[in-house]
């Protein structure tokens, strides 16, 4: 190989060294600067060519994200930074035309949220409006590096995107609870920001309204708030639950709003019953700015003395007619959502042909633990169901039970496993017992909610329960620990049935 090792012309060569040293170093620095300068010029020129193409590529990529939220999105506004928010970084306005005249909604860009040690999520959330009410839109995951990514996306994100609603938003117990909860908080923060800045930020004095409407009957203040859509006046539904399981509604309050010019009325009304047999409750005027406010207040007082749809027969003019429309719209919203989702509505799943139900017996601190399987069973309430309307012949007793588990299964089946399987589950179910108090018959069991990882196995076992089943039979069902917990609940129900 011809290696031309010629360094004779280099600056460090003997003849060059005869130059003054400062000249030498000046030349060295000059050459280095010249190389750097030429490089900079070349890169600048290339950047002039590629810069706009790169920007266009990035814009198209971002637009693809926006279109995953709003399919007809053509352009977005410049981002507006959101300060002092733990979840949100900025928001954009999304338009259906490139001229940015047709607003279709808002897109909230979250911060990158660390989900414990499982990874990060970064999402964009769509929130649009219907009147003053925020309407939940789809979610686009900009980043999802969770270690249980697939469970999170198929168990929570996909069902939510298929039907963005309060129900799918709340279903965080999907096998990826931490990630789902983090995304739930992002979406909720986006809706809160929208409500505070672009929607109706008015907050009803719920505690006062509930006291006015339910009075002494108010049993619990465990409430879930739901935004209503497709209604003229109805804004939100507040669902009151009978206990901390947050299953089994006790009553609902619907808030309504009327606004026309300087006139406005805000009214909250209570409902119970089913969608076909609505039971009207009292109402409360939270705010009224109308010329006939005195007549309005007088009417409400009359109505509250005997609540019912017929009480509106006399409301034919002025703000009374408006109030009637608001109340009927609230009733329609209550019925459209299926009425009150009470525990009692599930009794016919395990006790057929009963004619009447007693008032519930509410238990406090009735628990039974099974330390071997890390289960805690709690009894919340029980009802007697009767075969006659006069409530003389008791057919059975129905118990509302909850079993919570938090235990490390040592994975005895796998001797090489060094990390035990962690079982965390929460099952709420009904048990119907009848017959002898010392040896009752299980008429049936029914799942109200279950958040265990073996959901299907547990649901099938409970809903298909019969007296031929024995506790030992749960071994090898692929849900041994959880079903041992269910049996613990059954033992507690039997002891309560026996009057212990």
């Amino acid at each position, binding site marked *: 190989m011809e290696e031309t090792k010629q360094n004779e012309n*280099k600056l460090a060569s003997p003849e060059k060294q005869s130059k003054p040293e400062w000249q030498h170093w000046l030349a060295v620095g000059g050459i280095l600067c010249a190389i750097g300068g030429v*490089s900079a010029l070349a890169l600048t020129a290339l950047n002039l060519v590629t810069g706009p193409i790169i920007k266009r590529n990035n814009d198209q990529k971002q637009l693809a994200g926006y279109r995953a939220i709003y399919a007809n999105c053509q352009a977005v506004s410049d981002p507006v930074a959101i300060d002092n928010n733990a979840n949100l970084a900025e928001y954009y306005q999304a338009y259906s035309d490139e001229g940015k005249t047709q607003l279709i909604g808002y897109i909230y860009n979250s911060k990158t949220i660390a989900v414990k040690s499982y990874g990060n999520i970064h999402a964009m959330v769509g929130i649009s409006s219907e009147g003053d009410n925020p309407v939940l839109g789809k979610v686009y995951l900009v980043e999802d590096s969770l270690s249980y990514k697939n469970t999170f996306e198929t168990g929570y994100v996909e069902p939510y995107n298929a039907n963005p609603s309060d129900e799918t938003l709340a279903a965080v117990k999907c096998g990826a609870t931490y990630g789902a909860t983090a995304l739930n908080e992002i979406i909720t923060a986006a809706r809160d920001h929208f409500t505070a800045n672009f929607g109706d930020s008015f907050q009803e004095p719920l505690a006062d309204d509930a006291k006015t409407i339910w009075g002494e009957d108010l049993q619990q203040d465990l409430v879930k708030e739901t935004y209503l859509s497709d209604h003229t006046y109805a804004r939100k539904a507040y669902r009151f639950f009978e206990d901390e399981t947050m299953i089994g509604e006790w009553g609902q309050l619907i808030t309504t709003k009327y606004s026309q010019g300087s006139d406005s009325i805000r009214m909250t009304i209570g409902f119970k019953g089913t969608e076909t047999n609505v039971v009207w409750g009292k109402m409360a005027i939270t705010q009224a700015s109308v010329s006939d406010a005195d007549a309005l207040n007088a009417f409400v007082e009359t109505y509250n003395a005997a609540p019912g749809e017929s009480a509106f027969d006399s409301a034919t003019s002025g703000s009374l007619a408006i109030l009637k429309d608001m109340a009927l719209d609230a009733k329609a919203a209550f019925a459209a959502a299926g009425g009150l989702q009470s525990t009692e509505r599930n009794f016919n799943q395990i006790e057929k042909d009963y004619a009447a139900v007693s008032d519930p017996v509410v238990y406090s601190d009735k628990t039974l633990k099974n330390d071997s399987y890390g289960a805690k069973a709690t009894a919340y309430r029980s009802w007697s169901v009767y075969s006659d309307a006069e409530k003389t012949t008791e057919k059975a007793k129905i118990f509302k039970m909850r079993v919570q588990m938090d235990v490390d299964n040592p994975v005895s089946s796998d001797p090489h496993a060094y990390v035990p399987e962690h079982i965390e589950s929460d099952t709420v179910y009904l048990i119907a017992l009848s017959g002898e108090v010392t040896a009752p018959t299980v008429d049936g069991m029914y799942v109200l909610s279950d958040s265990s990882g073996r959901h299907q196995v547990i649901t099938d076992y409970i809903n298909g329960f019969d007296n031929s089943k024995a506790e030992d039979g749960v071994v090898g069902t692929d849900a041994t620990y959880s079903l041992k917990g269910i049996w613990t609940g059954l033992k507690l129900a039997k002891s309560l049935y026996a009057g212990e």
Partner: protein
Amino acid sequence: MATQTSTRGQHKQNFLNPIWKANPLFVLLLGTCPALAVTTSIEQAIGMGILFTIVLVGSSVLISLLRKIIPEEVETPAYIIIIATFVTIVKMLSEAFVPALYEGLGVFLSLLVVNCIVLGRAEAFAKSNGVYDSFLDALGNSLGYLIALLIISVVREILGTGVITLGAVFPFIPKTVIPVLKYSSSLDFSIPLFARPAGGFIVYGVVEACIAAHTWHQKDKEMAAKRAAAQAAAAARAKAQVAGEAK
């Protein structure tokens, strides 16, 4: 005439040696980190090989051109500026025209600035050789690296995913999925391990073992040939001695 033949032979050696006998990845074990990271798909490996070629050929030719101008006190900084310029150029071009490749290669594209093959050829060859020789040497090394990446990526993509996917990185290739080991979700013989870093190490190790076996086999053959030649020479000498004694 003899000098011309020798020069042509040297040009040929400069070009061919790095492709096989002195392959930078398989023989010199240089540039292994990006090689393991980007060889999960064939298209990505080809893309990396092409960008690597542009950087290595461009920087080697330019360094060779400027070798008499660059003062030896600032040789390394000057080389790094030149190499970094070419790396930035290929980054900008790939981000603009092949964005999927740019995203796929990620940080390994930027890390070409400190790639030991690129800097090594500048220090070891381009700074002391002519432009044409430097061009051939850089092209040979680039082709050697590209072929090595291609071999690893073919094995990893087929074993790791069960299919060969085309058109996912280069927008001008129609998107095609060629099933090799995976025909449906139930008829899937792929081994996902090979798509992961551990799979890269395994494939690299197996290829290295094959090359070592081949090299030792060649050496054994050469030794056997030498021994046979020595024995033949000794026999000839003995024969000549016997003939001399007979005279």
